[in-house]
């Protein structure tokens, strides 16, 4: 059973909605064709949109710290509140100014005030071997950036 009652839109209400629909769609389409992540929320849906040849090694990034006792500490999301993809997203900035990694150390200290101070922060990439689009299980670690406390 469907009720005979209905709320209809006024001409103005209808026109405003069509205008909003058209504008939103145009922005989203433009963002997809020409935009970048910076244009959020109208940027392109580019998660996992990059392409790599079937035999390119795959990077698995992590951030590590060394505290003054010499222990290696994992500076992952739980350690610093910074997501791995956020480290990778700003990797160019860190490369241009490795001293910026001290901010990662600061984020760790903020969350672990009683832990020993960090004397080193490094970004390590584990390169996994890929053949024909499949991981082979072999890998090699590469430290791409390093900051040492002065």
């Amino acid at each position, binding site marked *: *059973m469907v009720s005979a009652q*209905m709320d209809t839109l006024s001409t103005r209400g209808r026109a405003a909605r069509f205008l909003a*629909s058209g504008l939103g769609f145009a922005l989203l389409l433009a963002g997809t064709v020409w935009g970048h992540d910076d244009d959020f929320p109208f940027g*392109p849906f580019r*998660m996992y949109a*990059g392409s*790599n*040849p079937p035999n390119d090694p795959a990077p698995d990034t992590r951030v590590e710290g060394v505290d003054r006792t010499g222990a290696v500490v994992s500076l992952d999301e739980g350690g610093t509140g*910074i*997501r791995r993809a956020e480290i990778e997203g700003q990797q160019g900035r860190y490369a241009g100014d490795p001293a910026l990694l001290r901010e990662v150390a600061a984020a760790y200290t903020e969350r672990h005030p009683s832990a020993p101070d960090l004397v080193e922060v490094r970004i390590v990439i584990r390169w996994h071997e890929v053949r024909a689009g499949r991981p082979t299980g072999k890998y090699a670690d590469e430290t791409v950036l390093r900051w040492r406390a002065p």
Partner: protein
Amino acid sequence: MASAVTGLGRWLTEPVPRGRVAAFRTLVYLFAAADLVVFSPWVRSHGAIPGELYQPLLVGRMLPLPTPTPLLVEFVFWTLLAASLAAATGRAPRALGWTVFLLYFEWMIIAMSYGKVDHDRFAYLVALAVLPTAGRARHGDATRTEAGGWALRMTQIAVVCTYFLAAWAKLRFGGLGWMTGSVLARAIIRRGTDLADVIAQVPYLLIAAQIGIIAFELLSPLIFVLRGRWRLAAVGFFYSFHLVTIATITISFAPHLLAITSFLPLERLRPVHRIQRALSSRRHGRPPTPAAVGALDQMPVVGRPAGP
């Protein structure tokens, strides 16, 4: 031409029962609260990250929004939590709806301004933006509403755009080679489950899956030509796609999953009403009358629903 425009206009505002708008509204705002504490708790930790790592997005620079501080993040967290729970009751849909939208949008700027932008919640943001315009709606009300129909249609279009335009982005950034490349292998290495490790060992399966993903995303707009059972089946397929994604590469897309409910005849759920009815029939020691059951079922289960 004129009739096509009229037809498009009618389709964009195809009326739905107010009860569906009420149910969708409650779900969307309850999710906002759940997102804060369960699905995306990492956003809150951005308050304690040094401001030097804040890289505001275009909208954050234009407005301009302040660099997050612990105080700002805690303020947005608690006011958004309170506002979304209040909005879930359906009261003051306009005032509370816009409040939740603005706070959640700021929450997203805080989330996405540290070097990583997620694409799992465009349709959910659209739902938050259009719900304040959908008008008052009581649970179970069969009165049909065009304003509510437009709100649900916009969310549905945003859901489909998320798929279709994601395929476009893959072709733009990855090219045709995306389909035969190693993107899934990479995703599995970075965040794969044990199940994914097993799947990855099957020759060419990941490449076949990549071709399947592009095909699915490009064909997703077809859901709008499907009716009744077939449309529900398509919604089921959307969910199963995400189920596999969660089970293999642990990407949940939770806000998007919520937005997909805009395709469903949600007015039929009425959990609170059902519990009340069950309790009262137990108290009176007799089963509910057929009239009471009929009042629940104002819409056909499947078949052609009155709205989107």
